[in-house]
């Protein structure tokens, strides 16, 4: 199994389990199950992020050919990861209101907020990432920029 397939498998498993998950009549047991689900979510997101970072580094250093299909597949994995999150957050709030301290809750929320921040205003890629070269720099060298906008 390739690293990409492993990451996709982890996300698929998390996403499907999250969507199929139903609270048990035994609240304490259900809370434990939710904790397991949160941990699976955190770990699967780490897998996607690690794969994405490695892929981009390889493409941008010229070790891999640009590949829009792969860029889009990675984007879709993030989207797939986020799909059940509204419901998971709702269940999380339910257990916290019942007085449970839910393990992994803070880290899960942190992961979700970060991912939402990272994707804010962005859309699914329509062009592949390409290595930045000295030609790019030369072409932009004469750019007209109002640097007063950027006097921090």
């Amino acid at each position, binding site marked *: 199994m390739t690293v990409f397939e492993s990451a996709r498998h982890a996300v698929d498993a998390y996403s499907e389990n999250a969507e199929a998950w139903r609270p048990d009549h035994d609240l304490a047991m259900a809370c434990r199950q939710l904790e397991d689900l949160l941990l699976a979510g955190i770990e699967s997101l780490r897998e996607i992020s690690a794969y994405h970072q490695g892929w981009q580094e390889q493409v*941008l250093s010229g070790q891999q050919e640009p590949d829009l299909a792969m860029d889009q597949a990675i984007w879709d994995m993030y989207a797939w990861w986020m799909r059940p999150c509204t419901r998971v957050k709702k269940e999380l709030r339910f257990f916290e209101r019942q007085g449970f301290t839910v393990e992994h809750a803070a880290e899960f929320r*942190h992961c979700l907020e970060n991912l939402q921040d990272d994707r804010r205003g962005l859309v699914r890629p329509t062009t592949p*990432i390409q*290595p*930045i*070269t000295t030609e790019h720099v030369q072409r*932009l060298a004469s750019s*007209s920029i109002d640097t007063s906008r950027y006097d*921090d």
Partner: protein
Amino acid sequence: MIGKAALTVGAIVYVENVKPPQGGKGKDRRVVILRAPTADDDTFTFAVIATLRNLNPADDEVRIPHKPISGGDRQTSLTAPSVAVCRWVQDADITRVQSIKGKCPSITLGEIVRKVDAISGSG
């Protein structure tokens, strides 16, 4: 001096004496690395990071996540709303790097690289 190994694509670093494209006085600035130095090449390419002045980024800017708390965003270390200026792209020697501040999220880095590519006319 900061070692080459730390100057990876997506790293957010402080670089000394970054000049405006039209020339003029340089200033130490936070930047994001778009092309890393290699074993044979001590230069790298970066895009300047600046504070977002308006509500939304301009067409040639990409927002970089921040957190308005002490220490900033866990990954980027940015405390104020910030953007990568995709038209302000330059090369620098690794000796100009003063410190490493953080890392740009992969999703954001991909958007910056695409925008630089598109603006420079090859995208």
